[in-house]
């Protein structure tokens, strides 16, 4: 099965605080077809997020699909509470980089759809 990089499937890959104790990641796919490939791939799991950020799986609060926005969202426990001593990113807006390396296996039909 062909794997393609998340940057080809998604239009938004961002991170932000969800309150001072959580960081939340939004991946918004380019269209329904791309979202369906992503959700069916089985790639988007708590294990994926824990691996990308090198954190324990119990620090991954959830990975949720939001069909209405063609989006998949993950939320983790902030390693430092927003603004506490040792903070590096008060708004949490620059924690998205590891997500950009996600590779998603897609169907051959979808590859044709991309090429068309």
């Amino acid at each position, binding site marked *: 099965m062909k794997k393609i990089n998340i940057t080809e499937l998604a239009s*938004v890959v961002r991170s*932000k*605080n*969800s*309150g*001072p*104790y*959580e960081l*939340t990641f*939004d991946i*918004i796919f380019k269209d329904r077809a791309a979202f369906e490939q992503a959700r069916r791939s089985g790639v988007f799991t708590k294990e994926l997020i824990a691996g*990308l*950020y*090198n*954190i324990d799986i119990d620090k991954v*609060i*959830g990975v*949720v699909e*939001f069909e*209405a*926005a*063609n*989006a998949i*969202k993950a*939320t983790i*426990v*902030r*390693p*430092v*509470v*927003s*603004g*506490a*001593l*040792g*903070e*590096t*990113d*008060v*708004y949490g807006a*620059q*924690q998205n*980089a*590891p997500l950009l390396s996600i590779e998603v296996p897609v169907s051959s039909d979808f590859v044709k759809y991309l090429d068309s």
Partner: protein
Amino acid sequence: MEEMRILSPTAILGYGFPLESFTEGLSQKPHVIAVDAGSTDPGPYYLGAGKSFTNRAAVKRDLELILEAAVERKIPVLIGTAGGSGGEPHLKRDYDLIVEIAREKGLHFTMAVIHAEVDKEQVREALRRGEVTPLYPAPPLKEEDLDTTFRVVGQMGFEPLIAALEEGAQVILAGRAYDPSVFAAPAIRAGFEPGLAIHLGKILECGAIASSPGSGSDCLLGRVGPGYFEVEPLNPIRRCTVTSVSAHTLYEKSNPLALPGPGGLLELKEAKFEQVTENRVRVTGSKFIPTDKYYIKLEGVKMAGYRTVSIAGCRDPIMVKKIDEVITTVRERVQDNFKESGYQYFLDFKLYGRNGVMGRLEPELNVIPHELGIIIEAVGETQDIADTICSFARSTMLHSGYSGRMATAGNLAFPYSPSDFKGGAVYQFSVYHLIEVNNPYSLFPMKLINL
């Protein structure tokens, strides 16, 4: 009422908006103008210090335009989370601004001021009764946390705002409020479904961020009717699309299907987004499920000390490779030099070019950059201690030896003289908990003032 129109001028009062968009919004004859004025996002400092992250002159500019337009047309104005954090000093900043504008412009109206700062002893009593629960992943609240807590606010729901409207207030200035409340309150009072009204508030509270291209400095118009709400931008360069509006629903939230708030849960499992015109989106199916007991979210901060930082750069490739060794040496020298002093301090080195942005979450651990930005940070019990530790760490780092050193004239490039900056008081979140209340009004006293 068949349909209520709610104008949101800007994402945060003071972020500004184009006059053309606002005028277009007024031409649609809005029944309400509502604006969110704050957030916890800028961190704990502003709540602790009693200062606002929004600039007074910029807030006055927005308020003048809103008040003049609204008072003349008798449109109610609701402002939530006054002054950025919604505590007493924040509320007073915006209260004084409104009084100043009313005098300068000769405006007369009834204003309701709703307070949201909570006495920490009241929280302590509730904690002892078992009525305070942590909002995961915040840890359970301990009484010691309250001893050092500086200021606590509660996030009000729509009910106190409805009460102010019932009293005939034309302008409502509210302390800390759940962001959608100021938009939802008039719609719920008019009989529209709370789920739709709160979801609409969630979209409107960020101004035109929910449009494409998004902007926090532009207006958005909401309409709520039987079984639906709609949103549209007022600037012809923007469109509300199914994607822009639904994507905004999940912005800054842990779970877009279930959004907890004061008094209940906004459930969006059945929510449908539909493009009705080129730039307008209709939403249906949003539900509000009240909780059995009424909970209010508390936010509180405590002092963490005083900060001093020194900013420097390093371009020597040998030093860049040995940076861990240098930092260890500096830490040891600082500790040794002041071991008799009894100073309590936090000393940190932020290395831009190496894990400076992601810190503990950084997966790229073995990169050697060609230069490093270095921030030496000291936080102490007093500003003097922070100054002392930062200054000593800076001078030690400048001249510290390390294995293989060739650049013996100095290790750091300072872009500024003076090289050290006093950061002043530092706060940290200490309370982020739910408190059970008897009614939605109990933490939020209201006063009516005729201007």
